[in-house]
């Protein structure tokens, strides 16, 4: 086991940002940490990079309990490297930035040059060797940061939203590099994202975080809304877009609602599944996701994700732009 976490807690200014009962990560895999903003993904990565001390709980790395006050923490840090969401490079050349981890590890100069050149080629930044690091674009900075991380010869690379602030071309490049370093160099990669499609494309396994906790459901289709009751006592959740869902909840007022995309049913005709929570929408996107197909349906301005098993999808003969009916059963709705 690569990481094992038990009862891990982290609080900032009396706000609990992380509260994990139990979590395990296996070696040599690409793992995706999914969750909306503020879910605690970055804090978890910083704890796993041994940069932030948790307030409570235990962390095991390679079967050994991590002591955050121990001087040996530096040995652990040399096995794990974190690439921040917006990586920052030192005010010097690209070459010297990538050389830095080798320099502090006292690698001989002749070897350093060879390794730096190889790594810069790997990330497609070979021609920028002598360029000033601060003059690079966001995507280029990210690629140099990956080369810098690889120079550490780590066992684990942690990436905080690796493609959040880069253009499509750089996104493709970074995703290719992530796959390559995992397959060719046997480095475990743990990355955070709030992009479900990217996670399913890259990750062998995914963990969903929500408000600092591991979420049981996928916690996709998260919307803000208002709970109101009608004259018959039935409760409805009205989303900002105007979409009105019948719910059974004790909560009132402003809430957040999640609709599990695996449980939402999609039909070409108005189905008889349920009398309520049936909405007409337009199919706007279809994405292949291993054993399933993700359909994105625009329901009166609300983008609703639906995950359909491939065999079911084949029978539906869906076309983009087609009018479809989505049914959100009671079990698919979670209010928090």
């Amino acid at each position: 086991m690569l990481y094992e976490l038990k009862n891990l807690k982290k609080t900032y200014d009396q706000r609990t940002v992380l509260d994990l009962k139990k979590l395990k990560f296996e070696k040599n895999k690409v793992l995706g940490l999914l969750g909306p903003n503020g879910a605690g993904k970055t804090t978890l990565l910083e704890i796993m990079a041994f940069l932030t001390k948790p307030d409570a709980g235990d962390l095991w790395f390679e079967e050994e309990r991590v002591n955050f006050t121990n001087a040996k923490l530096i040995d652990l840090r040399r096995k794990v490297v974190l690439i921040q969401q917006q990586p920052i490079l030192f005010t010097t050349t690209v070459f010297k930035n990538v050389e830095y981890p080798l320099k502090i590890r006292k690698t001989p100069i002749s070897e350093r040059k060879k390794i730096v050149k190889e790594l810069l080629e790997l990330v497609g930044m070979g021609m920028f060797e002598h360029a000033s690091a601060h003059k690079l674009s966001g995507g280029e900075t990210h690629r140099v940061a990956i080369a810098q991380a690889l120079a550490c010869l780590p066992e684990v690379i942690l990436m905080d939203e690796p493609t959040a602030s880069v253009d499509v071309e750089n996104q493709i490049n970074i995703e290719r590099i992530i796959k390559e370093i995992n397959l060719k160099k046997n480095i475990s990669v743990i990355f955070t994202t709030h992009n479900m499609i990217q996670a399913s494309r890259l990750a062998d396994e995914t963990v969903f975080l929500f408000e600092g906790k591991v979420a049981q459901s996928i916690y996709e289709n998260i919307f803000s809304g208002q709970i109101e009751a009608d004259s018959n006592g039935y409760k409805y959740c009205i989303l900002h877009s105007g979409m009105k869902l019948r719910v059974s909840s004790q909560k009132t007022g402003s809430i957040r609602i999640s609709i599990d995309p695996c449980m939402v049913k999609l039909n070409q005709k108005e189905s008889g599944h349920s009398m309520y929570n049936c909405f007409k929408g337009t199919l706007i996107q279809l994405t292949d996701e291993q054993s399933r197909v993700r359909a994105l349906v625009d329901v009166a301005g609300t983008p609703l994700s639906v995950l359909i098993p491939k065999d079911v999808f084949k029978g539906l003969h869906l076309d983009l732009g087609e009018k479809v009916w989505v049914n959100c059963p009671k079990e698919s709705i979670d209010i928090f």
Partner: protein
Amino acid sequence: MDFLIDSFLSALLLIWSIDPELLVIVQVSLKMSAISTLVAAVVGIPAGFLIAFKPFYGKRLVITVLNTLLAMPTVVIGLFVYAFISRRGIFGAFDLLYTQKAIIIGQVILIIPIITTFTITAINRIDDRYRKTALTLGANLLQTVVVIIREARFGIVASIIVAFGRVIAEVGISMMLGGNAKGFTRTMTTAMALEYDKGEFVLSVALGIVLLMVSFGMNIFFNYFQGKARV
């Protein structure tokens, strides 16, 4: 106006002919200012780094006191140091009064707050991501400190320029603690004041020109260094 132009031309001639008296005064000034700045930098830079980096109780008070000390008049420092090193003072036995050491002590006290506060500002402006990056790349504490100081170097160098400018241009401390002894504790500024009193305007102007040239030279040097370092 003619008087000013004549004095200015005579001053330039004095500099050009490398007048021995002028040379000694300039040498004494540069030597003491350099030593004072060096000592203050050795104390002020680490102090500024620690204050900026380490959270501790009373940090804001310390910064406020340092900022107040920036406005300390040189004569106040002169009086303060005088109280300690005069014959009746607790360090009177060391015979420091009217020596170069006395001037250096006073000047160090004058510029330590400058270097410390500038360093605090320079370190505070450094993005915390540098610290995290250095640590995650495997740097130990000292290597991380070096990374942060390297990134803050332009601000720190600026503090040294300002501090040097402050000591080379001050009069109060040099006059009160040095005594303006010819060839020994006579600095450019005390000599200027003396020559002015004597009505010898030419040497005063010459020293003024040298003083400005030194400051100009220092700035050119550091600008060149900063330009090179910014890659």
